[in-house]
């Protein structure tokens, strides 16, 4: 849109955008509108009759204690995942930024969990914490702590938080490190000449200057924890025990594909869409603001 010259008008640009637009309409816009439409319908038990019920599905959803629990669990899950992985990544990046020798080697060793699929990450952690065989479970047992995430809901939640945070560390690490390396060295040097020690410098210079990166990562981590952790939950706990780890994306899948509650699942889809759209808008407003400065 900022180009000085353009090609002459012709049907070509329409041809060029056609594949992308077709796929968007068929697999994104149409299903999304279907989800909105279905969320207003109720199907009877035999699938013979559908009835238009306006917002009944939503009313039912919001008056459903189970859904509220799921919502609460999602919040707990996402905030802990964001906190844990951001915190670890920040410490590692701050240290790696100070290191002169071997920084690349450390980076190589730290970034690869990004490439591990969530469901695979889940499998790894489940194996380590397997109540009968797992190595960590065994060690905990030795220390007198009984670990069984198949029975204990809090432990199950902790396990998926560990797995989800573990996988996200590399992503956060890379962005933090890039953000820190973009801060001019002269700033920290000036602060050092002013007499600030390393920790003080970090909190007064580096951390404030890093805040755009931190904010961006916070949004990205919440999006990740909300939507991309399905594989982890599905592999590790299947939402159990007794729904203790049934976060919202898992519930949509479970109610729709396993429970076959179409209207309810569609209503949940719509709620999730509203959340994603809100997060995307927040993120874009932030990007716009960044552009202004």
């Amino acid at each position, binding site marked *: 849109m900022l180009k000085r*010259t353009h090609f002459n008008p012709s049907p070509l640009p329409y041809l*060029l955008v056609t594949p*992308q637009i077709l796929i968007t309409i068929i697999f994104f816009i149409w299903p999304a509108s279907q989800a909105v439409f279905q969320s207003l319908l109720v199907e009877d038990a035999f699938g013979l009759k559908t009835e238009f019920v306006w917002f009944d599905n939503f009313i039912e959803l919001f008056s459903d204690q189970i859904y509220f629990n799921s919502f609460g669990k999602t919040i707990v899950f996402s905030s802990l995942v964001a906190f844990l992985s951001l915190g670890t990544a920040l410490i590692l990046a701050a240290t790696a930024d100070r290191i002169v020798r071997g920084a690349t080697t450390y980076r190589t060793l*730290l970034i*690869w969990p990004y490439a591990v*699929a969530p*469901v695979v990450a889940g499998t790894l952690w489940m194996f380590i914490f397997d109540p009968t065989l797992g190595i960590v479970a065994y060690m905990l047992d030795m220390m007198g702590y009984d670990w069984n995430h198949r029975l204990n809901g809090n432990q199950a939640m902790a396990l998926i938080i560990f797995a989800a945070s573990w996988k996200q560390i590399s992503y956060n690490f890379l962005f933090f490190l890039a953000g820190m390396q973009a801060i001019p060295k002269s700033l920290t040097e000036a602060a050092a000449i002013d007499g600030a020690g390393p920790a003080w410098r970090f909190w007064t210079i580096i951390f404030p200057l890093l805040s755009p990166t931190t904010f961006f990562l916070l949004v990205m981590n919440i999006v990740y924890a909300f*939507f991309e952790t399905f594989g982890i939950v599905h592999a590790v706990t299947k939402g159990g025990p007794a729904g203790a780890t049934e976060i919202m994306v898992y519930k949509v899948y479970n109610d729709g594909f396993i429970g076959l509650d*179409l209207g309810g699942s*569609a209503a949940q889809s719509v709620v999730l869409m509203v959340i994603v759209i809100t997060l995307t808008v927040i993120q874009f407003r932030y990007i716009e603001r960044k552009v202004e400065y």
Partner: protein
Amino acid sequence: MVENRPITTFCSHAVLICGIAIVVFPIWITFVAASHDAVRMTQTPLPLLPGDQFFVNLKDTFIKGVGNAREQSVGLMLMNSLIMAMMIAVGKIFISLLSAFAIVYFRFPFRMGFFWMIFVTLMLPVEVRILPTFEVVANLGMLNNYWGLSIPLIASATATFMFRQVFLTVPDELLEAARIDGAGPMRFFKDILVPVSRTNIAALFVILFIYGWNQYLWPLLITTDKNMYTIVMGIKQMLEAAEESPEWHLIMMTTLLAMLPPVAVVVGMQKLFIKGLTETEK
């Protein structure tokens, strides 16, 4: 680095080594588990050091297959994953290049409309619209084939945005010089624009390949035929099939195999990967 006291340097290295230990630990355990035999993997405590069965297990998974009745071929699942990942990565890059080209280099009615329509895909991850999308794919007869696995995932707002950004930084004079040299739009696209953006394309390919390889929910929904299973979902099926007494040494071997290609891509093409990651998310 401002100070250079040995003690701070030592502490920094110590912190990083701890971090790496946390990050590497699950993989180490996986590798160890994949190198012992079935019997050892049922005795507590499980080993912390590798055994000598690694290549035996490797051969076992490949030759005999995995799963309850050994009916799933690991080679086939790897192949399916590879095909799906390639189709998704190449497809996304291809259609995004085309639409970014149209949006940047042409003025046409509804251009902004198309732009926003593409933007919508950013807002609707597959997880939030699984049921209706599944219905569409089922109606189109795309269950249990590679088209169904890849096409619904290849619309990409991020890739389109990134290419738009890249194209906007390509100097206008290149287009003008090409026009004077006698190149039409598609010539310019093929001879100048794509070669000029090749590093960005490569960087994006790394990210999208990993994205494609690691798809889980989507293949899980639309494949019921074991011959179409991807390796990532295959692991889950193995776990499920063997709820009672999982053969951990084989499962962990398969897990290693499932991780290997994307990890190799990230580590081997680190520079491109970091470039791709930081540029697509901007």
